[in-house]
């Protein structure tokens, strides 16, 4: 079983007829993703990219059996779109939209908390299971099929990791771009856990950035599980200036795990294969697997 999305996923695109939605829906269809339609309020009944347009997510679920949704709705309306998808019974919501107000995301995350749904993002490149489904904006050809899972906060760095893994003679099982916003649906630990439980994944690349404590939390969890699969870790921002984003109070909540150095140390202590240079991700993975 692959993770989050596969060839059986019935995908809808929220914000289907907008320019971003149109372009990326086209790319996803070309990749072979099973896109069953899209949602644009007020345009229900029309056809776009040869697929049906629905007024509501509920209509898309009822009439097309949609179970995965990707969101390209503009930031001011994106949190509402997430809640609509969750309410309609969508199982996996992937929010690509960048720039959603934090207050809106606090509300949306609270709303979906007790529902049977996984939110990935927002502000993320999406999820891809090579040769099955691309539900995101990543260049599909970079992600050749294999047995390495990737979890990353950053878009282009995910592509970089995938490219190196492929060039090392390995390949990708599922890559999950979790997004870099202050409030995201799926944490590093939750994404790592999905890949640890996936029988098509042998090892994991975990890419983080300065800020927050997601990577430390994930590393400690991996160790608590007895390091069942090798994990290669990288934290971007070893040279980034401190405190550029948040003020004093933020640094306290973030705790001492906040810097790249601190995170890398924790990851190493937890038995991860930590690389200092992002150029070494592929080769290190090869070695970790004894290849």
């Amino acid at each position, binding site marked *: 079983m692959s993770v989050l999305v596969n060839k059986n996923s019935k995908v809808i695109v929220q914000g289907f007829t907008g320019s971003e939605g149109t372009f990326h829906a086209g790319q996803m269809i070309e990749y072979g993703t099973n896109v069953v339609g899209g949602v644009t309020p007020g345009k229900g009944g029309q056809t776009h990219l040869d697929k049906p347009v629905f007024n509501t997510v509920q209509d898309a679920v009822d009439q097309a059996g949609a179970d995965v949704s990707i969101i390209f709705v503009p930031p001011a309306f994106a949190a509402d779109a997430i809640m609509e998808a969750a309410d309609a019974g969508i199982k996996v919501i992937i929010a690509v939209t960048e720039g959603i107000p934090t207050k809106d995301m606090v509300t949306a995350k609270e709303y979906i908390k007790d529902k049977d749904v996984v939110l990935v993002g927002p502000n993320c490149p999406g999820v891809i299971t090579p040769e099955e489904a691309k539900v995101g904006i990543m260049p599909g050809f970079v992600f050749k099929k294999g047995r390495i899972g990737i979890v990353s906060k950053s878009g*282009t760095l995910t592509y970089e990791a995938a490219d190196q893994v492929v060039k090392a003679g390995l390949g990708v099982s599922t890559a999950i771009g979790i997004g870099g916003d202050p409030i995201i649906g799926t944490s590093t630990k939750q994404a790592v856990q999905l890949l640890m439980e996936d029988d098509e994944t042998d090892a994991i690349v975990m890419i983080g950035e300065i800020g927050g404590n997601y990577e430390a939390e994930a590393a400690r969890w991996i160790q608590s599980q007895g390091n069942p699969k090798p994990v290669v870790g990288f934290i971007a921002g070893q040279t980034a200036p401190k405190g550029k984003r948040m003020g004093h109070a933020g640094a306290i909540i973030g705790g001492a795990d906040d810097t790249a150095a601190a995170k890398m140390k924790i990851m190493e202590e937890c038995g991860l294969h930590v690389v200092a240079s992002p150029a070494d991700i592929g080769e290190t993975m090869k070695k970790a697997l004894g290849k």
Partner: protein
Amino acid sequence: MNIHEYQAKEILKSYGVRVQTGVVVDDASKAQEAAKKLNAETGTEWFVVKAQIHAGGRGKGKVQETGSNGVVLAKSLDEVPEKAKNILGGTLVTHQTGEEGKKVNKVLIAEDVYYPGASEPKEYYLSILLDRSKSCNVIMASTEGGMDIEDVAANTPEKIVKEWIDPAIGLQGFQARKIAFALGLEGNAFKEMVKFIFSLYKAYEGSDSSMFEINPVLKTSDDKILAVDAKVNIDDNALYRHKDIQELRDLSEEDPAEVEAGKSGLSYVKLDGNVGCMVNGAGLAMATMDIIKLSGGEPANFLDVGGGANAETVEAGFRIILKDPNVKAILINIFGGIVRCDRVANGVVEAYKKIGNIDIPIIVRLQGTNAEEGAKIIEESGLKVASAILLKDAAAKVKEVLS
């Protein structure tokens, strides 16, 4: 977005939060009049003159030209103009500004709130911010007002209390009471603090802020609770629905190069190193800075060109990086997904020719869609530009040009 203390206090006041009253001036000649107005309004006879810059530590900070502190007390109306003059137009250096300091364009003439009375005035600390790990807001409070909260957290963490706010129900009365009791307040001061916390939280939510730091919050000698200072950070993503707050942006507080970059859709942060870089995506940009360091250089900047790397953005990026005299080499690192590498390569060649005499080595690493075609364009351009496809080759080339 950061705003000034006097602007933050205006926002707080509009939500019913009691603040230290003040009048802002940009010229010392207007200071006495401002003080008179304040005296008429509040009856204050002493005045606090406070430099308005986007950085903390103003009280201990020094104005380079005059030696004055950034926050000073004037004990009469007549002292106000002189004290204001010693701060206005000067360069204030605090532990948060860096050694180059910040120019002071405005001072806030504020009432003295530490007047004697029935009880001793006492300072507290209050902040509201997002707790990312719990996906909700948290209110932090401490009896150690006026201190650097990082020091309090490091030395006496038990003196910080926290209340997390359930997004579904909002701030509740028992939570505000818990904080006020934890601060050791009683009687009227206790009631005032509960009210203060409620108004403050309403202001935080209403203004779509990502951080409020009120340090100090003061209990006056007659048991009033008020904000003596206010540091407010607004969520940039929510500014579209706060036109009034947007207007509070003070561009003179921001790095001119960063502002210029923003106009071209680039995200730029200047650093002190010798190798410039231009990258698509924030994560890859930080990773590229790390590569520069590991190759023996120091990153001169962070620059994310975003999703649309084309001739115009590359040219704008070049011009911004080249303004920095410390830059000895430039590494361009683009992972083409939707963006095609051959188009980026053409953009680089075009921008290079347009700018003319670039006399420092440039390394262009293009990977992803049409990477080989891109590399070919760079190599055949006849320019002094080295190309690479693999990240480790790019790193090796940076090392080469630095040695």
